[in-house]
């Protein structure tokens, strides 16, 4: 039940783009076509989940026992950058087809603030899923990361679908491109506000 609450809240209620404003740059950057949006969502999903597990372990078993929490930011970003490189190399060797699909998106992910954002959130923020507020354990952190990245994918794919239609429409000149995209996301975020209060 608790995991179910985490999943619903991370995907719909606290959607990472539409409610928390994380990963907005790539969200706008690669959502002009549905196929690229799907590829990017897959890559982000993979990296966020993996990076959160690794940084969680690093934080719990190395930084906290040694009293080095102030190194969180710098060590997390290094872990994420190294991880992205490693995933790229491993994928290239073992699964060329998946690499071809995700390839160009992987290097971009290092600077996607959603990855670092989720990694920092799970080790620093107290959550209460029905019970008393507590820091997440590894299981909850993993589920939270996976659900959050699914929410990212959901928002991105929905938005890409709308944006493909927008491209063919006659939009006033000053609104062309990003301004109309922002307004569309605003309306989408308003729709997602409807989910608040569920959990």
């Amino acid at each position, binding site marked *: 039940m608790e995991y179910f609450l985490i999943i619903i809240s991370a995907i719909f209620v606290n959607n990472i783009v*539409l*409610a*928390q*404003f*994380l*990963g*907005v*740059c790539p969200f*706008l950057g690669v959502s002009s076509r549905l196929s690229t949006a799907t590829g990017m969502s897959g890559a982000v999903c993979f990296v966020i989940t993996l990076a959160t597990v690794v940084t969680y372990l690093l934080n719990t078993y190395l930084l906290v026992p040694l009293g080095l929490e*102030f*190194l*969180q*930011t*710098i060590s997390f*970003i*290094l872990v994420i*950058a190294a991880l992205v490189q490693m995933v790229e190399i491993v994928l290239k060797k073992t699964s060329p087809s998946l690499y071809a699909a995700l390839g160009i998106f992987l290097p971009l992910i*290092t*600077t*996607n*603030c959603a*990855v*670092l*954002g989720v990694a*920092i*959130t799970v080790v620093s923020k107290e959550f209460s899923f029905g019970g008393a507020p507590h820091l997440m354990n590894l299981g909850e952190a993993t589920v939270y990361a996976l659900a959050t990245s699914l929410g990212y994918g959901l928002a991105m794919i929905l938005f890409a679908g709308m944006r493909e239609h927008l491209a063919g429409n006659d939009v006033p000149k*000053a*609104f062309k491109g*990003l*301004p*109309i*995209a*922002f*307004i569309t*996301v*605003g*309306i989408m*975020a*308003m729709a*997602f*506000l409807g989910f608040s209060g569920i959990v």
Partner: protein
Amino acid sequence: MSKFSIITRGLVKENPTFVLVLGMCPTLATTTSAMNGLEMGLATMFVLILSNIVISLIAPVVPDKVHIPVYIVVIATFVTVLQLLMQAYVPQVYATLGLFIPLIVVNCIVLGRAEAFAGKNGALDSALDGIGIGIGFTLSLTVIGVVREILGSGSVFGWKFIAGDGILAFVMAPGAFLVMGYLMVLFNKLAKK
């Protein structure tokens, strides 16, 4: 390019928010009020100036292949310095801006300037570039904050001049996207003239 134009370029022609559209996450998330926007802008400017100076000094000796990781470490170092300073002297501000202070590390503006300007120019020019872009970013965030605060709570910098609650949606997530979109339209109109 004159020293003065390096600074003014960041205000309109290469405005990081409305023209380059970089660093959107803190821009949208922290501008719930004018004061928050201003504080976030200043925090980013601090990191931007210092990292620009250091990167311009070390760029000639950094091998090309590893320059991005090196730049990120430099930026992350200054962000950590900023985090410690803010926790010590302005804990209230640090608590309000929360997650978005450590996330300055992955703000595309900072890495973008390191890559596009500081890596190729001298320390003084890079510092000026940091100041210019930093002021542009701070101003943009403050403007967005002012608009959202007026519409959302009927006040400016905490000074309330419209009675009542205001339109709550503008303080929440949808308002950020809407205000950003319409301000960009306005900026496009004005800048084109």
